[in-house]
Each structure stands twice: as C-alpha cells, then as structure tokens.
C-alpha cells in the first residue's frame, strides 16, 4: 500500500519539475501552468466554489439533522431520501442537474410556464449562472455526506444532557447553543475537513454541466493530461491541488484543536 502511495507521489513531484521535451529538470512546467489563461480562472472558480458551497452545506445539513432529531413521523423514509445523494458520483450529479439547467431543461420549462423568458443557464456567456448551477449540484450531492456525519455525531450525544438542560430551564435555542452544538464539535470538525478536501477535487460535476467552459483545478489537470497530452503539467496541477488541500487540512486541525483543548481529557 505504501508503494502505491509513495512512489507515485515521488514520481509526481519529479514530473512536475521535468520538462517534457528535454527530460531535464526545469521550472518550465510551472510557468506554463501559471501563464495558461485558464489557470487563474480555475483557481478562482475552485476557491469560490469552496467558499460559497461549504458554509451553505453545513447550515443546510445541521438544519436537516436537527429536523431528524425531532423524530417526525416517517423519519426513516426522510433519512433514506436525504442520504441518497451521498452515494451518487459527482458525474451523475452533474448529469442529473443537467436535465434541469439545460436550455430545454426543466427549470426553463417552469419559467416559461409562468410566462417568463427562458434563460441559458449553462452557456459560457454567463459565468455567474454557470457557477450557480455547479454550486446547486454540489450542494445537492454533498450535503448528504455532511448530514450523515452530523447525524451520527448527534446520536452519540446521550439524550440525558438535552433533557437535563431542559428541566433546568433552557429553552430550545439555549439548549442548541450550550449543549448540542458544542458537543457536536468533533463531528463538525471531521465533516469540515473531509468536505473541504473533497471540494478541491470537484471535477466531473462541472464537466457534465458546463463542459470545458467552467474550469476547475482538477478539471484542468485532466485537460492537460488527456487533451493536451502533457502529463508533466498535469502533474504540476496535481501538486498544487495537493499542497492546497494539505495546507487547508492542517490549518483546520490547528484552529480547531486549540478550541477543543479547552475540554481537557
């Protein structure tokens, strides 16, 4: 297993610095990557996606988990429905929302039904709505992952704490703030790290919805590898992604570990 991980990593690092022409070590590949017009857009899009989608997902997932916690009738069915997207690949998710956002898709059908003009959501001429479409698909797909982590975290909190707080005079919001959320913190941490790391790898969703016109970091990696047939630059992209992912993960752990140190073991 170490072999499968370590060797490619070393290779990858080396490849990033190798010129494809002469085979000598060079920083050329990095230059090509940075100067590519798609690069900045890819970085921007990826970061934008993360900054927007993740907080929305977490808010959404927490609300959903709290709703389930109240045990409405049909809890099992709801949980099933809400967890389905977690097993759907990002490619499939992209295709599913394609049927909605396409020019002749369901969203435009609704608009026309209300007498409004249809809109070309996915065209490269309106990057704003492109982003919106990708964000929607991502929220739809990945919230269930966060949801499952949070729900299992909640189930690990003994009911007694909430009941005790209630008897001692805490209303719902007070209990949420003082008991539930603080005790949920470890789960939230895990979910946050996992989700962010996976978010950096968003790829097929955008491909399915927008094709080439909405560049993302991983998408660019793929493009350099296959279409442009330059695996070295592709490696450079990989390294950049990996570096950012690791930095973010470490950052999260640092920030959140300081806070959790207060709850001494």
């Amino acid at each position: 297993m170490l072999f499968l991980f370590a060797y490619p990593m070393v290779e990858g690092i080396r490849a990033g610095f190798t010129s494809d022409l002469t085979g000598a070590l060079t920083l050329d590949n990095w230059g090509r990557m940075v100067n590519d017009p798609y690069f900045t857009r890819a970085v921007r899009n990826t970061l934008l996606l993360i900054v927007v989608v993740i907080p929305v997902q977490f808010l959404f997932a927490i609300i959903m988990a709290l709703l389930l916690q109240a045990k409405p009738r049909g809890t099992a069915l709801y949980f099933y429905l809400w967890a389905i997207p977690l097993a759907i690949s990002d490619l499939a998710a992209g295709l599913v929302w394609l049927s909605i956002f396409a020019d002749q898709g369901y969203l435009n059908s609704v608009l026309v039904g209300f007498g409004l003009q249809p809109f070309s959501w996915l065209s490269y001429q309106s990057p704003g709505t492109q982003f919106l479409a990708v964000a929607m698909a991502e929220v739809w797909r990945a919230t269930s992952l966060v949801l499952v982590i949070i729900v299992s975290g909640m189930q690990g909190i003994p009911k007694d704490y909430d009941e005790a707080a209630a008897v001692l005079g805490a209303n719902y919001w007070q209990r949420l703030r003082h008991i539930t959320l603080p005790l949920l913190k470890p789960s939230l941490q895990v979910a946050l790290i996992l989700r962010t790391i996976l978010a950096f790898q968003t790829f097929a969703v955008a491909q399915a919805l927008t094709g080439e016109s909405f560049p993302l970091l991983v998408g660019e990696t793929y493009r350099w590898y296959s279409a442009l047939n330059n695996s070295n630059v592709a490696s450079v992209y990989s390294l950049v992604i990996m570096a950012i992912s690791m930095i973010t993960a470490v950052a999260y752990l640092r920030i959140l570990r300081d806070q959790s140190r207060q709850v001494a073991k």
Partner: protein
Amino acid sequence: MAEIQINNLVKVYPGGSERANDDVSMHIDDGEFMVLLGPSGCGKTTLLRQIAGLELPTSGSIAIGGRDVTYMPVHQRNLSMVFQSYAVFPHRRVRQNIAFPLKMKKLPASDIDKKVAWAAELLQLTPYLDRFPAQLSGGQRQRVAVARAIVLDADVLLMDEPLSNLDALLRLSFLSELKRIVEQIGTTTVYVTHDQSEALSLGDTVAVMRSGKVSQMGGPLDIYDWPADTFVGSFIGSPPMNFLDGILQDGLLDIDGHRFTAPANAPRSGKVRVGIRAEAVGVVDDEGPNTLTATVQVVEPLGASILLTVEVGVHQLKVQAEPTAKTRTGDTVILRISDSAIRLFDPETGLAWLTGDSA
C-alpha cells in the same frame, strides 16, 4: 416550593397497548419528600417524567403550586432534576455546570457566583469548581448533579434513582447526606427508586407502584407494618414478608394443623393468606401457645442476626434469630409467632383484610 396535585393520570405509549400509568392520583404537600417505589416497569419513572414534562400524559392532569402544567413545556415548569446518569455536562467545568440553571434564568453574575459558592460548599465541591467532569470520580459527579439541582430555588426537586450508579458504600454514606441536604433546603421532592431500604429511610411518604397503579401510599412505617396487599408485603422489608396458607375459624387460625389465636377484629372466616415478618418469628426452647415446629434448611449469619430458612409442612419461612443461636442445618426448632404481628390477606386478590387504621 410548591404542592403537586396529580389527577387520574393515564399514560399509554404510542404503539403500546398497556398503560404505563393507569389512573394515578396523588397529592404531594408543599415541602414533602415523596418516594415512588416499585420494580422496573411499574411506571414510577414514567410518572416522574410526566411531572417534569419530558413525557406528555395521554389523559389526566398535573398541577404544581395551583398552576396547571399538564402540557406545559419542560423549561417553563421551574423544576430541578437529578438524573440516574447524572447528566453532568462534560464540556463545561464544575462551576459552569452548577451555574447553568442560574444562567438560563439570566441572573446577574454576582448572584450567580454567590449561589454557586453556597451550593458547592453544601456538597463539599469547593476545591473542584474549576475542574472538568472527566477529572472527577462518579461520586463527585453525583454531587455536581445535586448541587446543580439545588442551586436554583425550584418549586419541585425531582430525582430519578440518583444513587443506583454508586457502589454500595458510597450509596449508604451519600444517602444520609442527601437526606440532610434536602431537609435543610425543604423543597418539595419526588424521588424514584427500586430499592425499598432507600425508600423507607428517605421518604416522608412512600408510594408503592406496580403495573402502572399505586398499590399503597403512606408513611414508611405504616407501609412496613400494615401492607395493603401481598405484593407490598413482599416488596417492602428485607427479608420479604413470609406468607402461609391457613384457615380462620371461630377466632382460631389453623396453619398446617398448628393453632394460633387469630387477630381480634378479623372481618370474616375461611381460607386466608397469613403474612408474618421474619423478626416476628422467634426461636424458643419449649412448645407452648402459638408455636410450631420446623426443620432448618439454610443458616445465614448476617452479623447482627442470623437468618434461618425453615420448612414447615409445605411452607418455607424466613426467621430472624439471635446472633448467638447455635442452630445448624437439619436441626428441628420450635418457633413462636407473635400474634400481634399476624397480617391477614385474601388468598385470591392478595388484598389485606385489615388496614392500619382499624388495628
């Protein structure tokens, strides 16, 4: 402090067919210490939780301090509770745990500090105020739970088997301490337990419950001396009350051929179930009135006394003997029954023929 009035409370769990609480009514005076006692499944915890509001009744009503609280949300009821698992918040220090109810009421910080200090002092927690619960022992966490419950002067204090997770020695010492504290504070208290010795030592009133109903409610000594049915008789007291079958005729009680003087105001004659406590049966040297012979089967030295299990015809009796008795298994002994301690019960329903008032 407030009085509690429970009227015709019925609780059926959704999907269940049995009544967890079957038409329960009781009145608890202001400042009274009421113990709900019974085996598991009898409905005592369900009753407590409905007083707390953690469960809603199917029908009936609960009023605290003259105010109807049957369906009132939990946090508005002005109660306190100590849980069996303590439920001490693990992510807050002891100080913040105790301060929690005060903080929810939004009291000023100086008041909070004062009350927290008072409660901590009362439960000897002052050196631990800045620790986290994970750093405390089980017994100490129990104290935190109690401190947290008494710090706010609630109308009613509820306790759900708070001592059952402690080991035997701690339980005994904390029992008396708990009684002292509750008496000092004087809040109306409802205490749930399955341990009859706890119930007898703590309660002003004990309500023995079985299968969702209250079998008997009264002072500890009354319940001990005059159980209302065979269930209460066998549940209260260690060892449980002995039961023998007999026939009552013309003022004489016939048990397996032995004759005893029957209690004076027995309401009827016929078959009867006789109840007699182990300490009311004594080992004597000679036969005489109200004696019978028995064979010793088990000898259990308990230190302060010796518990004998003896066989009388088809019956088995527990007898409390002097610690110096030299009886051995297989011996034949002569037992005298103290006739003032004889209790009579209906062989079919198990209900007592006489109650304490008519004695």
